[in-house]
């Protein structure tokens, strides 16, 4: 009988106070608690973190990189979302 695959977990670490958790990689583990321990041993051996999140990889829904055109290209033409689109005379100063 084939061995059951070990579940995959995505690891997120908060490196400094005030920063958001950031994806650093993944680990295989049987449950959430073991995933946390494995993540600690794998990704924070040099004090890289203050806090760890582990999330079952299967719980993540990702966009298809092939869709990046239709998803993100339309914003390129919306230059009016940027402050530099608006003209403020120099005399008025920073705004």
């Amino acid at each position, binding site marked *: 009988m084939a061995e059951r695959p070990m579940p995959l977990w995505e690891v997120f670490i908060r490196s400094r106070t005030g920063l*958001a958790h950031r994806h650093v990689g993944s680990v295989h583990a049987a449950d959430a608690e073991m995933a946390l321990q494995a993540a600690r041993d794998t990704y924070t051996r040099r004090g890289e973190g203050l806090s760890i999140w582990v999330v079952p990889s299967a719980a993540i829904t990702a966009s298809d990189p092939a869709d990046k055109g239709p998803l993100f290209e339309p914003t390129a033409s919306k230059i009016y979302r940027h402050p530099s689109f608006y003209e403020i005379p120099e005399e008025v100063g920073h705004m």
Partner: protein
Amino acid sequence: MYSQALNERIEGPRVVEDPDKLAAFQARIDAEERIEPNDWMPEAYRRTLIRQIGQHAHSEVVGMLPEGNWITRAPSLRRKAALLAKVQDEGGHGLYLYAAVETLGVSREELYEQLLAGKAKYSSIFNYPTLTWADIGCIGWLVDGAAIMNQIPLCRTSYGPYARAMIRICKEESFHQRQGYEIMLTLCRGTPEQKAMAQDALNRWWWPSLMMFGPPDSESQHTEQSMRWKIKRFTNDELRQKFVDATVPQGLYLGLTFPDPELRFDETTGHWRFGPIDWSEFKRVLAGQGPCNRERLAARRKAHEEGAWVRKAVLAHAAKQRARERAQRIAAE
């Protein structure tokens, strides 16, 4: 945009906190550490944040209404695209803030319910009407200008999720004030009628903009505690003065006059001194007696009620899909 500190009483039973935990908490705050959702925090800190971030989120969402009023009547495609983008941003900012307040243990549904039932407050400024196109200029220049004054220090507020939401918001909002000022400048360089329209809008928006910073420090019950917890970094009066100092020269450049006969530059301090604010108006508007309070809430309720079938339908569809996948899986096994 933003909601001022409204300084009402914090509801809920008084919780007696462990003095050791309180001291350790204050030490973390004093060391400029950020507090995160699963850290221990005093119940009053949690409640203050739920109230403040919740009001801030509601203000972003209700703030879409006065400006949305002019999208279809913007004078050019350029102005229309900019206004649409701005209103879209406000909706997004509301969502970032709702997400931040949900980390404190309140559900989105509860927050909506509080707003729609009239139990939660939002910034009083959005209870004023947008009568002419110049009002859209004034909202960007003054209301967003006041918001930026308040929001930049909030990027360093002690609660991590709130601070991170504010960083995103401030970055995106930098165009809002500029587009408003550009509208004002165009009107002021236009015909005498256009300039008069700009002046009329300034006359109506100036005082309510100053009220956005909330009651004077002398009457603000929670300022001291909020400052100690570093939720707030500046008092209402400090922020109001910074706003006046930054804004008056911008208005003078437009060739407009401010509706305040006592406004004058104080050479010795380098500050613009302004006349007394009519706090009875502020209290009236906050208590529901502003020109548009009823209209704003009615619009939010209508949108919520008319969206109910959509929310119901998507949940039913997702449940059906899950049931179908489960049935297929069982059949395959």
